């Protein structure tokens, strides 16, 4: 559709040249040599102090990976990746834990400052060790920091720098730590769940990740616990020629609830960097997991040079009856996005949701969507996807909804809408709808359309001027998704998308 000037301007504002997080931090790093082989995997495993079974698991994945071919079915185009030209491990050189802000590497501090993380939180993020009897009262921390508490796990290149609010979470029975720590401290949980949603054999990039993942977050919410605060992981790629391979595992036991947020940025560089993550969610009976992402990796410059290749496998398993998993994503960054957060609706009466806003500009390529696999009885799913393509970008929604033979009364509603700004971009929709059960009810709708005169007339005849009327309608275009985000992220997402929401009522 020919977008209104206001919208065009705002999208342009977040054009690739305007990337705010493109700075690089010079910090002393401990790196593995370039290349990928069994020795590198042993090196990573040793660095992480991992038990033998974990190393074996990695090596098995690596051997499997060697037999796989890179997938080519996505609507993305990029030069072949040289997997031997990447550092698979890079971490800030560890020094004895600083005890005050003054002792923290000022460069590391600057990173968090520039990324806009509040000061009080910053102290925690930089790994400041509190004196034992300091006002460690969690409530006070809360009062001083922010109106709402968000526990953060900060991942800097290959390692988790720090995890906040651990103590208070532990009191509630929630385990929130880096995955490396979980492998050491809670091997029984990791062993039980790791790789059960995304097996090591799943796909090219997931298999690679299984072999070389360096860090990520681990969340375990025990039976009946409602996680007392939002959990969040902040991913930052800093080092040159590195790949980031993080692994996140979230488990919600019976009746538990957690809301998890993920954010990411990277410096501006001419060469492409690879980010291949795996996220696994497990929801048991009556559990609910809400997973939100604001993805803002460096998208490359105006000519399409540089940027992150974001090849991610995210999958949630609604293993228990009446469980619920909800994915919300705002995708604005990355040169290439290849990402399909999915739900396996295994438990009876389970529910999966996917809300997505994908904004592409410059030479970005997005091929993203979801899979809703209905296996249990009375399962339902809902997909809302909004794609906005500008510049020379290509924006594809690719999704699958399937009902197994035994999935009686499966329900799905899918809506994908696209907005095109300019003549050089493309928007595509590729849904796969597969019903093997007569009681399944699937609805799919997709549109690519201009704001109709009828809509405009309807609003304007109520005394609203044209510009505002258009803003109102555009607002409606993304509202369904924005509404699903936790409050802090909703604000960030709105800024990021830059689509006018002014002048709208309410």
């Amino acid at each position, binding site marked *: *559709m*020919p*977008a209104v000037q206001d919208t065009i301007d705002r999208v342009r504002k977040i054009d690739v040249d305007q990337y705010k997080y493109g700075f690089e931090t010079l910090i002393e790093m401990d790196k593995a040599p370039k290349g990928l082989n069994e020795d590198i995997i042993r090196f990573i495993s040793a660095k992480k102090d991992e038990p033998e079974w974990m190393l074996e698991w990695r090596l098995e994945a690596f051997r499997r990976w060697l037999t796989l071919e890179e997938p080519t*079915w996505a609507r993305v185009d990029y030069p072949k990746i040289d997997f031997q030209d990447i550092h698979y491990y890079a971490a800030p050189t560890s020094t004895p834990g600083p005890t005050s802000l003054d002792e923290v590497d000022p460069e590391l501090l600057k990173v968090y400052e520039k990324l806009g993380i509040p000061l009080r939180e910053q102290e925690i993020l930089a790994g400041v060790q509190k004196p034992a009897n300091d006002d460690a009262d969690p409530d006070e921390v809360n009062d001083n920091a922010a109106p709402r508490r968000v526990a953060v796990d900060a991942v800097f290149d290959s390692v988790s720098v720090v995890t906040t609010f651990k103590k208070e979470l532990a009191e509630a029975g929630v385990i929130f730590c880096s995955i490396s720590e979980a492998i050491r401290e809670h091997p029984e949980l990791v062993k039980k769940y790791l790789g059960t949603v995304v097996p090591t054999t799943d796909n090219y990039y997931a298999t690679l990740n299984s072999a070389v993942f360096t860090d990520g977050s681990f969340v375990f919410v025990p039976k009946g616990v409602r996680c007392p605060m939002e959990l969040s992981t902040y991913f930052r790629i800093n080092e040159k020629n590195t790949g980031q391979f993080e692994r996140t595992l979230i488990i919600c036991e019976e009746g538990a609830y957690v809301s998890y947020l993920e954010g990411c940025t990277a410096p501006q560089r001419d060469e492409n960097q690879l980010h291949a993550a795996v996220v696994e969610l497990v929801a048991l009976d009556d559990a609910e997991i809400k997973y939100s992402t604001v993805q803002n990796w460096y998208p490359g410059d105006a000519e399409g040079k540089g940027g992150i290749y974001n090849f991610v496998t995210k999958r949630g398993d609604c293993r228990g009856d009446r469980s619920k998993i909800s994915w919300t994503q705002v995708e604005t960054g990355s040169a290439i996005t290849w990402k399909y957060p999915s739900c396996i609706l295994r438990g009876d009466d389970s529910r999966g949701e996917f809300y997505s806003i994908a904004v592409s500009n410059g030479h970005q390529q997005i091929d993203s969507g979801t899979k809703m696999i209905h296996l249990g009885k009375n399962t339902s799913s809902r997909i809302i996807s909004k794609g906005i393509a500008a510049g020379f970008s290509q924006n594809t929604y690719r999704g699958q909804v399937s009902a197994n*033979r035994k999935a009686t009364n499966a329900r799905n509603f899918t809506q994908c809408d*696209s907005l*095109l*700004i*300019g*003549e*050089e*971009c*493309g*928007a*595509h*929709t*590729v*849904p*796969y*709808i*597969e*019903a*093997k*059960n*007569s*009681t*399944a*009810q*699937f*609805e*799919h*709708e*997709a*549109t*690519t*359309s*201009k704001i109709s005169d009828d809509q405009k007339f309807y609003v304007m005849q109520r005394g609203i001027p044209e510009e505002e009327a258009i803003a109102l309608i555009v607002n409606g275009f993304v509202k369904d998704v924005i509404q699903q985000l936790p409050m802090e992220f909703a604000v960030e997402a709105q800024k990021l998308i830059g689509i006018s929401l002014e002048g709208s009522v309410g």
Partner: protein
Amino acid sequence: MNMHAAPQRTPAETALIDAFGERLSLLPGDGDVMLKRDNAIEQIKAGLPTRRIEAWHYTDLRRLLTTVQTYDGTAIAEPMTPLVADATAISLLNGASSAKLPKVDGLDIRRLKDMLEDGSFSAALGARESDDAVGALNTAFVADGYLLDIADGAALAAPVEVQNLHAGGQAHVRLPVRVGKGAKATIIERQSGSAPALVSSISHLTLGDDAELTWLIVQDQPEGSSHFGQFNAELGKNSKLTLFVMNAGGKLVRQEINVKAAGEGASFTLRGVNLLAGDTHTDVTMVLDHAVPETTSTEIIRNVVTGRARGVFQGRINVAKYAQKTDAKMACNTLLLSDEGEFSTKPELEIFADDVQCGHGATVTEIDHNHLFYLMARGIDEKAARGLLVKAFVAEVIEDLEDEALVEALEAMLDGWFAAHG
């Protein structure tokens, strides 16, 4: 299909290659025609497409094509009663054209066999792409067909019915059609037979500027048959094409529809009805190119799935760069009536222009219980009520055809199908 070379030939692949060796000397045409046939069989030698080939995602031909009937020179089909009484009927009986052709003002009919023999048709032969298995199969074996040429400005009073009939074995035909500027006509393509067979039929339509054409494909192959149809069309300026497809038979059916709106102001309407019963696997795959500005299209596909039938609809709408003001809408609705039935849909949009209105919708569901209750509350028993609802679901699409005689004839076929499978 070259990308994933088959490790070992399936019996069907071997049968096709062997059949080519046996039939070769009897197929019309040499020189360029033979070269095209050779290339086509090479394509088949490389392996039939599997589900890894995106265009065949839901129809793994390599796995599904299990039987290749042997060509049978003695089996000769009988012409059938035309769908509408006044139609001009021409038939292809077991893949062979007739020397006795009707004379109609404004319509020129030629036998394709002659054009294959003298080589004048060689340029139009061949597969479209490396994944065009239907094109390859047909090119290798095509022996006959008709070329229809409707003169500029001609308005044919009666529909032309082309019958492709067989009594078992194999039949491979082509049907090139040119409709002149401003001409008006209705063409009915019947695909049927009396015994299991392997059939391929490809038509090429060139629709002149301002021409208006209604084309019906009515396929009711007998059980055990494999039917591969391909309809290709290019639409001129301000031309109007209404295509109606009805699939009501066959074991393995693939009907491809490739339409290019190549002239500004062109409009395309597709109405499809798939009545799937038994253990049929029926795949309708459409690719629609909006290549120039100001073209419109609407597609409605209605499917009824019973028994152990599997249905597929893939529909892709491409809007080229600068094809502004395109208006394209597609809907695919499926009634899944049995627990063992399956339906898969892949409606795609590929859009490279910004000032367009495009949309697609797809639904899969069972009969609405409220509707059923409404009818049953009025004293109609469940079976009859279901029958009424299913018929209404399909008839709605048939009634979009404005010609009453055609609507009546198709509804009669519908009743016949329901009587047999309902």
